[in-house]
């Protein structure tokens, strides 16, 4: 059983409200921080913890914090990225809905470490009801002296504001998020300058994911070194995984990154196996942008070793035979699913979400969408598969922000591992409209374990 640091109290009745949260030990980390730690000491603890950004990129949080510029007389800001939009990902929503005070607590400690007196939560516009939950939690925290002026008698002042986005995936990219927070279109900025130097209103800014900021609470409570002992290698602490697709128990799970992918999918503690007694075909383990893996490469690496649910193991083999931890959006496809169709819906998604600023992404995502539509609907040619490969290759690495890569990778991986299925669609235009390709060569790789 994985250790739980974030969701341990998620099922305590009334934990959404201040009184219960406080009774369960909530806000102790704020007390410890303001009474015993300097801002630099907090940054040091986070560095020691080895915490990596939980939004998708996995950049070390402590290091990101240490980059923030501190020019004299210029306010600094912490911005919480709650624009959770990566298909397959719904973990931040779960945290905010059920444990809003955990996020607020993490935000207060982090704001202190970074010197942010006005901290913003940028939440995706569709999570409209969660805005109310967060604002209520903020009011409760303020009424109990955890926010406002001179918190706990210290010289630290902090306010937290919630801003709603309005339906743009791109605003999860930190510089697009900052633009949006300034009341503009979500067009990513060219870096450098990085937000740590010039961010919100040209002031030094740190943008962190919801889960990253919530993880600051256990790090302060237990100390960075203890936190780093959980997990394995550079995958320290716990990670929230949102599991969906053809599994028996979709939902949000906290894992300590030492369990295998096989255990995660088949054990009763997590996904509970493939739904309806079907077989596992493929999986996108870290949100729609990361490469899809066929069952055989998902459960074992190309070297034949067990694959684990952590940053290193999931990326073992690079893009040739591996994938990525990404945002923890775990999408499982069973034997009845069509990889061409699934990839088409993702390409349509990226086409819809491209901000239009860089030509390779703006034009390329249109091509990916159209070519996959043709292939999926039995109108494709064999040369379209090569054209698709060519288009994705010309997007990757040629755009200001990673949306271009995010659109290219799923297409590349689908062709790399499922080319036979694409060809079958071309060669069987009518049959492919009423039937699915099935499992093919990865079928016998899977022997469900009994746990």
């Amino acid at each position, binding site marked *: 059983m994985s250790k739980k640091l974030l969701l341990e109290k998620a099922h305590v009745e009334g934990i959404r409200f201040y009184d219960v949260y406080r009774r369960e030990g909530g806000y102790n980390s704020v007390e410890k921080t303001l009474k015993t730690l300097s801002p630099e000491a907090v940054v040091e603890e986070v560095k020691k913890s080895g915490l990596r950004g939980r939004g998708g990129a996995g950049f070390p949080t402590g290091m990101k914090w240490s980059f923030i510029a501190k020019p004299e007389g210029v306010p600094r800001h912490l911005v919480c990225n709650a624009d959770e939009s990566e298909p397959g990902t*719904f973990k931040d929503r779960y945290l905010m809905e059920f444990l809003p005070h955990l996020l607020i607590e993490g935000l207060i400690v982090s704001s202190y470490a970074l010197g942010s007196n006005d901290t913003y939560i940028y939440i995706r516009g569709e*999570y*409209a009801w969660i805005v109310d939950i967060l604002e209520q939690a903020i009011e409760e925290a303020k009424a109990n002296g955890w926010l406002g002026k001179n918190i706990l008698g210290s010289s630290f002042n902090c306010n937290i504001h919630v*801003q709603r986005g309005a339906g743009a995936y791109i605003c999860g990219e930190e510089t697009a998020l900052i633009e949006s927070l300034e*009341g*503009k279109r979500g067009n990513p900025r060219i870096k450098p300058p990085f937000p740590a130097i010039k961010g919100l*209103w040209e002031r030094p800014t740190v943008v962190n994911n919801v889960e990253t900021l919530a993880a600051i609470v256990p790090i302060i409570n237990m100390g960075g070194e203890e936190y780093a002992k959980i997990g394995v290698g550079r995958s320290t602490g716990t990670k929230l995984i949102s599991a*969906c697709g053809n599994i028996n128990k979709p939902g949000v799970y906290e894992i300590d990154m030492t369990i295998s992918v096989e255990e995660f999918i088949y054990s009763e503690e997590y996904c509970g196996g493939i739904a309806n007694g079907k077989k596992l075909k493929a999986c996108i383990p870290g949100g729609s942008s990361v490469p899809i893996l066929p069952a055989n490469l998902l459960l074992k690496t190309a070297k034949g070793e067990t694959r684990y649910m952590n940053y290193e193991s999931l990326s073992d083999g690079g893009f040739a035979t591996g994938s990525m931890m990404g945002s923890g*959006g775990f999408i499982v496809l069973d034997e009845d699913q069509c990889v061409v169709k699934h990839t088409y819906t993702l390409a349509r998604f990226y086409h819809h979400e491209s901000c239009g600023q860089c030509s390779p992404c703006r034009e390329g995502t249109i091509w990916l969408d159209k070519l996959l539509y043709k292939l999926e609907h039995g109108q494709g040619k064999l040369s379209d598969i090569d054209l698709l490969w060519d288009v994705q290759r010309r997007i990757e690495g040629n755009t200001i922000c990673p949306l271009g890569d995010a659109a290219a990778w799923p297409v590349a991986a689908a062709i790399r591992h499922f080319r036979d299925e694409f060809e079958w669609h071309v060669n069987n235009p009518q049959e492919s409209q009423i039937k699915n390709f099935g499992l093919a060569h990865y079928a016998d790789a899977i022997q469900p374990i009994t746990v």
Partner: protein
Amino acid sequence: MKFNEQQIAEFNRLVARYPEGKQKSALLPVLHLAQESFGGWLSTETMNYVAELLNITPIEVYEVATFYSMYNLKPVGKHVFEVCQTGPCMINGSDNIINYIKEKLKIEIGETTPDGMFTLKTVECLGACGYAPMMQMGKFYKEHLTKEKVDNIIEECRKNAALNN
């Protein structure tokens, strides 16, 4: 066209979150407020009013309103069904739900029923992948959709409308 007293109070609360001179930052939330206050969509008149309130040029409002998918630039029905169709919802049968709503309401995607009650839209991932298929309806999500659930939702909307008439 003007916000009423209560809406002005909300407008002031939104603007007060940002430093002086940075009132443009309130644009997205203010557009949400304007859309809710003036019939569920943003007319040019509404956008010009928002520009005036925030002391910015109208083009600054138009470019934002046209960028974000949650702002409606033409009138919509009283209830908008925004059904997710991205990968995780698709593999859980969102196509069937979309087709069922089309048949039941006799409208295509993007259309509104003649009585102005319902608009059907398809949207991309709303972050409810584990509770698929799903749709957004106003402020809330309707998850684990089935044909029966869709029937009930439509029924309830019609019942409420009849009660209010």
